[in-house]
């Protein structure tokens, strides 16, 4: 066990796999000598050389499209998209290609590919409209893709190794504010966490909160804050958005009778909509109140100025208010 930050856990996962399996390579913008703009591949270039730590031309469709070919050609590419905001030029290659190679060939070809993308904003991120976005909703809609977004450093490592070994394309979303936020004991060497299962991070009976990434942190804080008021909030870390762990979600709602979903992305058609719809269909009989969503504002993205960014973001304070209202319903 070593106490690692999230970013270190990400780095550790890739390092572990690259040492174990020489088919694994990383590619993306500035992943080479610079080691990535967040340092995820720091030192890789020196250890593994240019062929396996590939600084690509500045072209995301190329990064993903070539990675698809590499996967088909027997490698295990990990493609880094520098900021998730810049994943859209690769949208066609991800949605029309990577996610369909298997289905469209009736299983003859597969596409074992990981796409890592730092996402998310907040006042501290100072990212403005194009270095702050949450993109999970677009991709969670796509059959053939898996979408993972860990909260804890140990999950970051375990899920990333699982993603690298997965036979299908995985979009791996890392919230930028988690990178250097907390430290956690992370198992050394080979360690996997299965893609799929959600995790109850805090048990409770008053109501259930579903969140992921940085919003899980806010939700846990809010749960702590309202505990003093006698609200016993259960907090579920979804971890994987596709495939979604419906069983854990529904079991939690069946227990508490109330559901609050928190996400940083724009509220309308954000991922919380699916969680709400799932509950409204499958656990209707257990519901004691409306299904509440707390999401980011419905403006194009997180604005740069602190005042505006703060207005955009769901925060522990806003979440706690929603908890109080729902509990009182």
């Amino acid at each position, binding site marked *: 066990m070593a106490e690692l930050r999230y970013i270190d856990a990400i780095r550790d996962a890739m390092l572990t796999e690259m040492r174990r399996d020489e088919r694994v*390579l990383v590619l993306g913008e500035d992943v080479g000598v610079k080691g990535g703009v967040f340092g995820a591949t720091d030192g890789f270039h020196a250890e593994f050389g240019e*062929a*396996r730590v590939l600084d*690509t*031309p500045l*072209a995301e*469709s*190329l990064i*993903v*499209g*070539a*990675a*698809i*070919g*590499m*996967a*088909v*050609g*027997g*490698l295990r*590419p990990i493609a880094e998209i520098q900021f998730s905001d810049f994943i859209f*030029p690769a949208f*066609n*290659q991800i949605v*029309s*290609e990577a996610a*369909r*190679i*298997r*289905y*469209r*060939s*009736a*299983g*003859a*070809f*597969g596409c074992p590919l990981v796409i890592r993308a730092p996402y998310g904003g907040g006042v501290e991120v100072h990212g403005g409209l194009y270095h702050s976005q949450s993109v999970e909703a677009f991709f969670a809609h796509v*059959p*053939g893709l*898996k979408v993972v977004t860990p909260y804890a450093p140990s999950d970051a490592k375990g899920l990333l190794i699982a993603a690298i070994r997965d*036979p*299908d394309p995985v979009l791996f979303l890392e919230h930028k504010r988690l990178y250097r936020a907390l430290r956690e004991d992370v198992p050394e060497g080979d360690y996997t966490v299965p893609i799929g299962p959600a995790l109850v991070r805090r048990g409770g009976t008053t109501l259930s909160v579903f969140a992921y990434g940085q919003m899980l942190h806010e939700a846990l804080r809010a749960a702590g804050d309202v505990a003093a008021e006698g609200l016993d909030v259960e907090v579920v870390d979804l971890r994987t958005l596709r495939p979604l762990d419906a069983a854990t979600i529904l079991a939690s709602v069946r227990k508490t009778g109330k559901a609050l979903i928190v996400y940083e992305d724009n509220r309308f058609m954000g991922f919380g909509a699916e969680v709400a719809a799932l509950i409204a269909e499958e656990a209707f009989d257990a519901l004691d109140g409306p299904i509440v969503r707390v999401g980011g504002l419905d403006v194009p993205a997180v604005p740069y100025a602190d005042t505006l960014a703060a207005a955009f973001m769901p925060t522990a304070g806003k979440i706690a208010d929603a908890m109080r209202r729902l509990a009182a319903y």
Partner: protein
Amino acid sequence: MAARETHARPTGARHEALGLHPDDLLEMYYHIALARAIDERMWVLQRAGLVPFVISGQGHEGAQVGVMWATDRTRDWLVPYYRQLAACLVRGMSARDLMLGLFAREGDPSSGGRQMPAHWADPRHRIMTTSSPVATQYLHAVGIAYAAKVRGTGELVVTSMGEGSTSQGDWHEAMNFAGVHRLPVVFMVENNRYAISVPTRLQMAVEDVAVRAAGYGFPGVVVDGSDVLACYEAGREAVRRARAGEGPTLIECKVERLTAHSSEDRQEKYRPTADLEAARSKDALVVFKHYLEQVGVLDEARYTEIYRRIRAEVNDATDYAEARPMPDAATVGRHVYAEE
């Protein structure tokens, strides 16, 4: 285009100088003729209402067979596009394979009936699965080539598209990457002067898309797609370069689209009759036959034999595919993800 047609009229010396044996020539001709026969049958079936859709490679076969003939059919890759019926045949797909795709029947090796016709795939023959959004395959091709290079397999990759598809960003991104890493890839552009209805005049400001290769640091060549041996020669040099680690080559084959874009298209609306008639005179099937006769490789008897064989194959493939069941509806949910 005249300036680029530097080849003399066919003489026996040409194929000999290329090291091609008469048996090779006959096999090449057979593949061109087989592709045409399958393709024509597909239209017949579509017009008869037996299948809903057909998209065609008629007029492109000579270019494809010429270039593909230079590749190693056991280890090289084909990352095709929808007009490459002939290329797929050269790679080893059978008439039955293709007809199963047309009819979308159980056992279709390309997609199990999931894709429209002409979206081939066959891992046995290293034919990568084809998609509809044009130009995406160029990026897959450079990725496979990169893998081949890193893994040191000696494989190379041939990929192709129409001239209209070169307008897509993916085309540029692939060309650039292949140039930077001198990848073992052969880029074909099958320039038939139309993208559905859009003429090259509105597609690009240059006459030959091959001139763009210079901007990526590798050679681009223009060949007459009705001249099978010229295509073979261009392919052979591109293959040599790729195998020697010298990097990619862009081969632009000037071909003719002898049919409408697809069975959904009515080309009379935008294509002058004269243009279509001129196209027919550049049909590799005719031009190559003429060459083979001139050099004494093809005679009446051999010709009859080849067509007998082809007719049998096409009939067999049609009957076989038509008789197969439709895919089982219960399989619709399979292969979204890997199965345990």
